[in-house]
């Protein structure tokens, strides 16, 4: 086989590799979200984060506006301190926004939902969301049901 045909075939091989990498990075993995615009950070403190994991989504009215970047335990206030990274185009959350931990579907993964309040002041970078609602822990729920049933009968 002459060298020109070999070079053409090797070139096609390279193109096929680039196509495969394109499919793998754009369609299969989450690369598109990695290259999104910069964001600002907010802190929210919860009593119980339940099954919330890092890189969980932060949604307002069901639309993803950011993600959880860090979950840490604060030994001084005995609460979990969650750091959120919100997309810069959504910079108008009022100071009395509530952050709650919801579950997607019945047994899906957990995410943070932001419910805006009514104040005029807007949350800035590194502000803390003061109104929070912790995750629902199944054992506590069952305990409450058993307690209320035994109290009633």
């Amino acid at each position, binding site marked *: *086989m002459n*060298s020109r045909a*070999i*070079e053409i*075939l*090797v070139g*096609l*091989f*390279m193109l*096929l*590799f680039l*196509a*495969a*990498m394109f*499919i*793998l*990075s754009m*369609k*299969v*993995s*989450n*690369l*598109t979200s*990695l290259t999104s615009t910069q964001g600002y950070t907010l802190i929210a403190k919860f009593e119980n984060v339940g099954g919330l994991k890092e890189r969980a989504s932060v949604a307002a009215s069901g639309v993803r506006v950011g993600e959880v970047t860090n979950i840490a335990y604060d030994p001084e206030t005995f609460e979990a301190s969650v750091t959120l990274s919100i997309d810069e185009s959504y910079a108008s959350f009022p100071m009395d926004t509530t952050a709650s931990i919801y579950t997607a579907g019945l047994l899906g993964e957990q995410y943070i939902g932001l419910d805006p309040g009514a104040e005029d002041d807007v949350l800035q970078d590194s502000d803390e969301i003061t109104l929070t609602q912790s995750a629902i822990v199944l054992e506590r729920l069952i305990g409450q049901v058993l307690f209320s049933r035994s109290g009633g009968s």
Partner: protein
Amino acid sequence: MSDFLQRFGRVWLGMVERLGRATLFLAQLVGGVFSLIKRPSLLWKQLHASGVMTLSIVLVSGLFVGMVLALQAFNTLIDFGQENRVGSLVALTLVRELGPVVTGLLFAGRAGSAMTAEIGLMKATEQLSGLEMMAVDPFKRVFAPRFLAGVIALPMLAAMFSAIGVLGGHLIGVEVLGVDKGAYWSLMQNSVSFTSDVCNGLIKGLVFGFVVSWIAIFEGADCIPTSEGVSSATTRTVVYSSLAILGLDFLLTAVMF
């Protein structure tokens, strides 16, 4: 008794000696790679022989592996009502594990054995000695192009295997089994991370390419120069490469994930 001990010791010492020879061989191989910049046509020819020629088996195997994965995953996941996660499972399995490993095994069987047979035959027909007589370094001329071609080709083939496997999974999952198309791709995108999954898969491919090419070329260059010697060197390449791939895969998975 002492006879048995002697033979036992000799076998093990022989293996250690061979490993040492192989390591010195690798050092010369890597040294020969640098001179390829002056003569890239050698590299293209070997990329064609190792990479392009292995393409057909890699693509067909990738398609069928992806389809089988989707089928099996669906049958199990539907018991939990999570059949929408077929895409996630197929993609993660392929990109993290099956892509590099199966491609490595196929490459060892097809391109690795071809390299060993070719080099072994060159040694048996005294072409390598002839090159040395003409003051041409066989490492630079014969071995290094094949080595570099293997190292470059295997991760590329692994990526193609994973990509076409995911497409095959889509074909079976969405078209035949009725998984929701949007759920297939969006759940997959949420669970596959580019940096820790796709890139780690590529790193695995690189390591496997290094090891398979090294074993293939060494076995060829170190074989007994008879037809029987070449044939046993070829089978040794496939066996040792496969074992090395599987062992290294475990190590790399333990480190990376």
